[in-house]
């Protein structure tokens, strides 16, 4: 038993020492429809030429954890290689009837709800594997939601560095200041994943985040 613990301990220490910098896993977390996949798509298109996943106005479009290995960003002479992990939006409730309001048929809506519940469970399980996390919030929505607080609380408990992105600044209702006031301990970058607005500032912050790993 003692030998097993010692073996595991030395394995962890050694893997941390010899871990390559391109092993860094950066996760995209947040509530549904905040624009996680839209932001992941911008990064992927900019640096790999491919998209990460489909986006939609219907919530819970991303229902499975998606990966992009070895995303290489070169920005202002600096280089960052990481594994991008796009996760399904975390929510405390799922009602298939909400999807019907978007025009989905009952059976399709029920299937989507079932997949979305599993997606949320997977997102939470993946928290343990992240090296750093970008929390994507919809800047037009009240940031004081318990889901946001729960995600951040869990990352803090695991000592995982955080960057908060306030998305949808192209919309009139967007209030980046409110997001900053809600989470004063963290860096907040306002962007529009739809228009690509402020993406340069986001990349600056991404490099700062990766440095904390």
């Amino acid at each position: 038993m003692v030998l097993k613990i010692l073996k595991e301990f030395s394995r962890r220490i050694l893997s941390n020492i010899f871990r390559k910098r391109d092993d860094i896993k950066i996760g995209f977390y947040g509530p549904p429809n905040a624009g996680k996949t839209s932001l992941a798509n911008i990064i992927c298109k900019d640096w790999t030429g491919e998209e990460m996943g489909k986006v939609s106005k219907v919530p819970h479009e991303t229902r499975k954890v998606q990966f992009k290995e070895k995303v290489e960003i070169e920005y202002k002479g600096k280089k960052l290689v990481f594994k991008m992990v796009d996760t399904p939006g975390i929510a405390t409730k799922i009602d298939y009837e909400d999807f019907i309001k978007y025009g989905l048929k009952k059976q399709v809506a029920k299937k989507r709800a079932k997949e979305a519940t599993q997606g949320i469970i997977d997102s939470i399980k993946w928290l343990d594997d992240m090296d750093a996390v970008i929390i994507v919030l919809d800047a037009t929505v009240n940031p004081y939601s318990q889901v946001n607080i729960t995600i951040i609380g869990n990352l803090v408990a695991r000592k995982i560095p955080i960057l908060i992105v306030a998305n949808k600044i192209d919309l009139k209702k967007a209030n980046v200041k409110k997001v900053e006031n809600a989470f004063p301990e963290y860096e907040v970058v306002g962007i529009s994943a739809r228009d690509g607005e402020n993406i340069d500032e986001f990349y600056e912050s991404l490099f700062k985040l990766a440095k904390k790993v």
Partner: protein
Amino acid sequence: MKGLSLHVIPFSEIQDLGIAERVRKILALILANKIIILHGKLRPEEEARLIEDTMAMVDHIKNFQGIELAVIEPDLKNKGIMMKMRHGIAKRLVGYTGALTLIGPASVVKEIRQDPKKLELMLS
């Protein structure tokens, strides 16, 4: 609406329970359509577990849509050192945080509007 059932849980009632038992107790009340007012708050990992178990139940229990959850706690940012110490000691001794947690079934509680100073419960 037929009636509203509130269930107040003093923190002492869950203090000695493990994470699984705490979440099980909360979800049993939620399935009985009760709105829970918990004195104190869950730890972040307990909240995450509550969301995970809630989602597993949404998948398996007919007509169960999930929960609404919110926490309000005293803002100690601009309070004096004595006040902060008093809260710290109370937290260590009896788990008291001055926080209140509101959890309701999503079929009964449509939304909990939350800001740092108040919680607003919108019923279905």
